[in-house]
């Protein structure tokens, strides 16, 4: 972890007054309500989650608060309609704060079966399934695809390999190719 990582501590009350909090909760309930076994955003996106998002994206704070300002009224649907029509950037910030807070919550991630962007070890020494299934051989069997500038039509090469195994095990070409551990220098 590094110094650029956002913390999840912090007090969003320093930038959200009671009206903004109430308005945000109403919007959250409207956009992502509890349904289909998932919790509502109003329940999930608490002060800690808001702080997490806004520490990561401090540029969102101003348009986020603008989208929650009292002048836009108490009706969440009317507010969303006004923002969509007249202030799409503020609406976008509101939606991103909401979604960002919701989908970085551990319980929500579990609910949608998303573990995050995981590090998965590659097994590049294994024969890929498409080779075993013969899918590459099917491509090779159809012949050349590239257009020969000399003729203007798809190239025809006499004696070109028709299977991957034929190419790979060709004694003639192995000394020049293969993944032979060159170090790239």
């Amino acid at each position, binding site marked *: 972890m590094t110094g650029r990582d956002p913390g999840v501590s912090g007090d969003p009350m320093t930038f959200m007054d009671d009206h903004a909090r109430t308005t945000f909760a109403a919007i959250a309930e409207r956009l992502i309500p509890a349904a289909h076994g998932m919790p509502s955003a109003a329940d999930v996106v608490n002060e800690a989650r808001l702080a997490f998002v806004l520490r990561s994206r401090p540029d969102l704070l101003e348009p986020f608060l603008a989208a929650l300002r009292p002048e836009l009224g108490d009706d969440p649907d009317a507010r969303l309609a006004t923002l969509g029509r007249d202030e799409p950037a503020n609406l976008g910030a509101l*939606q991103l704060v909401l979604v960002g807070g919701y*989908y970085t919550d551990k319980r929500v991630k579990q609910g949608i079966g998303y573990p995050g*962007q995981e590090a998965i070890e590659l097994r590049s020494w294994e024969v*890929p399934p498409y080779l075993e299934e013969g899918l*590459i051989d099917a*491509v090779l069997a159809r012949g050349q695809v590239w257009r020969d500038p000399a003729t203007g039509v798809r190239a025809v*090469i006499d004696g070109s390999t028709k299977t991957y195994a034929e190419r790979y095990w060709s004694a003639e070409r192995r000394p020049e190719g293969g993944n032979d551990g060159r170090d790239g220098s």
Partner: protein
Amino acid sequence: MTTEPADVLIIGAGASGGVVGRRLAEAGFSVVCLEQGDWHDRADYPGDKLDWELKARKDWATSPNIRGLPEDYPIVEHSPVSPLMYSGVGGSMLIFAGAWPRMLPSDFRVRSLDGIADDWPISYDELLPYFRQTDRDFGVSGLAGDPAYPPDPEDPPLPPLPIGAAGLKVARAHTRLGWHWWPEFNSILSAPYDGRRPCVQRSTCQSGCNEGAKASTDLTHWPKAIAKGARLVTGARVRRVETDAQGLASGATWIDRDGAEHFEPAKVVVLAANAIGTARLLLLSGDARHPEGLANSSGLVGKRLMMHPFANVAGLFDEPLMSWQGQFGDLIESLEFYETDERRGFVRGARWGLAPTGGPINTALPSRAGTQVWGPDHHLHVRSHLGHGANWGLFAEDLPDEANRVTLSDSVADSSGIAAPEVHYRMGDNARKMLDFHIERATESLLEAGAHSIEVDRLMRYSGWHLLGTARMGDDPATSVLDRWNRTHDVPNLYVVDGSSFVTSSGVNPTSTIVAIALRAAEHMIETRFEQQVPT
């Protein structure tokens, strides 16, 4: 402070600058590079952190206009496609996906084959040794034998990356359709190589690679160049290339982070600042002797900008594909419809690359094809999309058009007060017809693979990754800016080695070809070093 002129001054530490810097330093040249961005510590990249998807939309956005970092310059856009780039050591490779297809033989003969645009002064065969060397230098993973290319006896240095469950489904579909597909070539390591670690399939390639598995010249080239004596100056924003009384480039004036101005003298100047940055700099370097900008006797500097109009076709599948994982450089590609078939109503073609689909925030607020769904059905939308998709990205060949161009803004400047570039661009009719055709075919592909529904973005705005053509090469100084060795016709010690040199765009991701051309230019500089005209 007076400094001795470097043998070569490179402006820009990205893909092409890194290739030229390393090769010339290895050959014994004294090399200085000015880079307006900085080095990055890959431990800071957000891909392995909880807020990755939030950071990816701002600090790591691909558009400098969204990032707005001090080292970025603003771009005034008169264009449906936003140009994308990154300033830093490694350049836009830090945010590129890593797909590494080569241009094809026909791409160099567009006029001869299709009666449109222009032929290149060089051929695929001439580039082949440089493709091979740069594949080794960057560490390319792939499966040899792709019949979309002429047979090459040399394999990629590393075995292919996995194609994932989505790639396998589509590969099977193409087998049934009789269409070409192939595991994608990526400059992403499938195994340890050259001191670097392999890919871990996190799919966050466009926010910097935490593993260092994705190639970028801050990892693959600059450390080697510096070990050979190259000097890389970061936070150095070049204001203009200077010329002497003989009309030779004499160095560059640049501004540091504190606003102080400096002059870096050099015997040879190499521009490697991408097709917008390089054009901007040439235009900024005009003076009484060069009123239209430096190296611009042809009037073509900044013109013929090409950006590959891009469409995205997403297929949704019932079964889970875990498609938030996997290299964002593509899983597989198809070149089935790449070559011209005039019966389609257009010439040239597009490359398809199948890519992962992102995490839950991108699912809720899609940056590509797709819709937002709110209310109770939001949960059904996320469940049906997250990890259930496969994206065909369609890169259409962009034909050169002098009306598509880079100019200097008279009202917008960067943080150093230097005029910002203005991009004037529209998609041509040929490309529109091409994308429409390819969208239909890609839809067929995904339906054959079993997709239950298709979502299409017919022209994605934030897709201007491939910046090409604003200082084209050619044999005739009246109709080109550069000669076949990337040297400007007008200034014999001024080179341009980035994608500006492209005569036509092809329909493939260009970085592999850009760096091969850059290496070829560097080798020529070495071969002709004793004939090189330099300031006295």
